[in-house]
């Protein structure tokens, strides 16, 4: 099949960047979207051009590296699918496809489709963990966890940290990402001692990193390849309110 691509090219953070048109004539509907870019890049290299830079690694929808906006949608048109799992059979022969980086105030462009999502790591560093130094753990069965809590914790823990929620949000908010971690750890008995501290710190870091506030547009959960439910944001808000009005539970 033949595809007409318009791809965001930006040499570096200082460059203004622009969309550049390319055509791929020998695409195949069994190709993944990233393989389409591989084919284009091989050609660009042989033509003496610079290939399109994009983040990717596992190519099976779990590492969270791939990050592009395809025809206006982070990770493209397929529900619950990362870019690397998207296949060309969902596109028509002759179709035009626009490919841009995940855009957000907190995600500066590094080059072409590659952005810097380090702010998400810094949010986790500020409190997205349970302090359990190696060696100090009690026997695993000492604290049973009701299955319902374990299942809800798991659903939230499935977040791959890709940042599509941020790219989809008109405010550039990472509330779905933060809410997912708050819910994962907050559902577990092990997560209780630091629960209030955690939410306050993560929210403070979120705001300081330049992510916007949540106005409940719900775009995040639609874009999320792991279908993290919107109710993690309500959980985040409840925990935050409790921590800031009810007093922090820990020092």
């Amino acid at each position, binding site marked *: 099949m033949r595809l007409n691509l318009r791809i965001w090219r930006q040499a570096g953070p200082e460059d203004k960047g622009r969309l550049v048109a390319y055509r791929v004539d020998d695409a195949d509907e069994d*190709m993944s979207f990233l*393989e389409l870019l591989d084919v284009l890049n091989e050609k660009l290299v042989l033509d003496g051009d610079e290939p399109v830079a994009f983040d990717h690694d596992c190519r*099976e929808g779990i590492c969270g590296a791939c990050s592009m906006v395809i025809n206006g949608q982070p990770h493209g048109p397929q529900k619950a699918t990362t870019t690397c799992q998207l296949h060309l059979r969902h596109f028509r022969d002759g179709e035009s496809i626009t490919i841009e980086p995940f855009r957000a105030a907190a995600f500066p462009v590094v080059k072409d489709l590659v952005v810097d999502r380090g702010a998400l*790591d810094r949010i986790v560093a*500020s409190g997205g963990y349970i302090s359990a130094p190696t060696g100090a753990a009690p026997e695993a069965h000492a604290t049973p966890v009701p299955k319902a809590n374990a299942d809800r914790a798991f659903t939230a823990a499935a977040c791959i940290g890709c940042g599509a929620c941020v790219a989809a949000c008109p405010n550039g908010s990472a509330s779905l990402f933060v809410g997912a971690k708050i819910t994962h750890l907050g559902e577990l008995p092990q997560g209780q001692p630091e629960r209030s501290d955690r939410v306050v710190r993560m929210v403070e870091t979120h705001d300081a990193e330049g992510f916007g506030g949540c106005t409940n547009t719900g775009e995040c959960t639609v874009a999320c390849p792991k279908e993290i439910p919107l109710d993690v944001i309500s959980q985040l808000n409840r925990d935050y309110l409790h921590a800031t009005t009810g007093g922090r539970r820990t020092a």
Partner: protein
Amino acid sequence: MTMTNYTDFTIGGPVADTAAPAGPVEERWERRRFGVKLVNPANKRKMKIIVVGTGLAGGSAAASLAELGYQVSSFCYQDSPRRAHSIAAQGGINAAKNYRNDGDSVHRLFYDTVKGGDFRSRESNVHRQADISLQIIDQCVAQGVPFAREYGGLLDTRSFGGAQVSRTFYARGQTGQQLLLGAYQALERQIDAGTVTMYPRHEMLDLIMVDGRARGIVARDLVTGETRSHLADAVVLASGGYGNVFYLSTNAKGCNVTASWRAHRRGALFANPCYTQIHPTCIPVSGDHQSKLTLMSESLRNDGRVWVPERAGDTRPPSDIPESERDYFLERQYPAYGNLVPRDIASRAAKNVCDAGRGVGPTGLGVYLDFAEAINRLGRAAVAAKYGNLFQMYQRITGEDPYVVPMRIFPAVHYTMGGLWVDYDLQSTIPGLFVVGEANFSDHGANRLGASALMQGLADGYFVLPNTIGDYLAGAKLHPVDPGADEVRATEHEVANRIETLLSIDGNRTVDSFHRELGHLLWDQCGMERTDAGLRKALDRIPELRREFWSSVKVPGTGAQLNQSLERAGRVADFLELAELMCLDALHRTESCGGHFRAESQTEDGEAARDDEHFSYVGAWEYMGQGEPPVLHKEDLHFEYVTPSQRSYK
């Protein structure tokens, strides 16, 4: 100058594991911990350790070492430590908790692993890992890893690959992800505390040696392109496996051997490079554009039946092929185990029918995994409940509905048992260089059992290394290294020159085209089945390919920027050297064992014939220069607790 052949290797002195304690196997780890020298807490704060890699092994090691008080620098090539390829592990992690009361014990896990490794691993190491497996589950639960639980709130387990007890802990199909997030969060906590300095998007390109010890690395900042040295008191490699040498594998695109290979070139012995694991149930290649392979969980073989058409060249759709013209070859060849034979056997059987022209799908490299019988027997709903997410994943990739059309599967490279040689303390033959996780060779022998790589990575990182590295640091009397020292400058220059060379060749072939060709060659000659003639063919071709690479590769752009072609070029250059060693190792090991099947060494009925008399050793290779014959050092293996026996699945 006389020409020496790469295959004219020589045999050097034996290599001995001098850190391994003696005594009853179940007391050795305890004894070793008591025997190690301790570093006093005030000194720990002054000591710096570099950890390359943030997967289960490196992430857990960096966090644990920082908790102990060391200053840690942690490196990964991805944009975040959370993206290391451990994230992709699906099935689970073994631990001998015996929560099921089904007869499991540390000794049984030890026994199964030694046997599963086809008697090519060390009893001491395997026992330690089985012992530590108990603590791993405790540690991960304390961190909030959301393992699957039963209604009573206790942890659920399942059975896995061959084991007769239910000891595999899991978190749906995302066990690796959840374990890694636990280690990553512990790591981020230390980053916030200032005890770990994180260098994401940094690639280690060489090891710095001073006075015969590992004292740092040269790394390239993948964003700015700056290469510079980072100095330390000890270096830990946790850089994962090298399955990507085959181009197509279940590894992530960035997985590489560079860190290990550079250390090998600096003197670290590389052990058992030919031991690779080929997983039978992966989604087949769909065309030349294919960039990686996706694993489908082994559990599918519980209900799926594997078959191909009886007649070669039969291109009818599967639904048009009557029962009488189908060959359920695993059931036919292995009536006792049927579709549930171990990984290596299932993989080789699939290869054989495809070689005979009976493979299915557009490329002829595939076999059917058919659920029709299971759907009839159990009903569609029951099959969906068990395998629904896997069916969905399959359909997303292939566009075919496995409820209606049988799945097509084919074996793919999955894991590498070989790696840098380490002693019981996980120290390589270079003092001060430690190796953990898939990057070392230590605990799986010639074949890894399912759900034991996660166990090994976390055992190494959380519990073994933090207890053993101190012995080196306390005893080494290290002086600070001057950043301007000759050894440091020289290594920086070598790295810079290599990058310059790669950029200046400006030939007419892309990096990927070389990688593909190398991958094909290895897959054909050093894959599921190896022969003397095939390996020699590969050993002839690899040096030529390497020369072609260095004279005609095209790497666009400059070194002073994000340059993904340059990153790949460096990795493929190292694969081109490693591949040669893999083939030589496979050639010299004329027995079949575990993942290494030598066609010349089989029983009358076509099964692997191990040769304990001649090959009960670890083959640890010393680098002598590019293309120069390396030197083989043997570490003899002794079995005091598990008596070597031949495997049979008929």
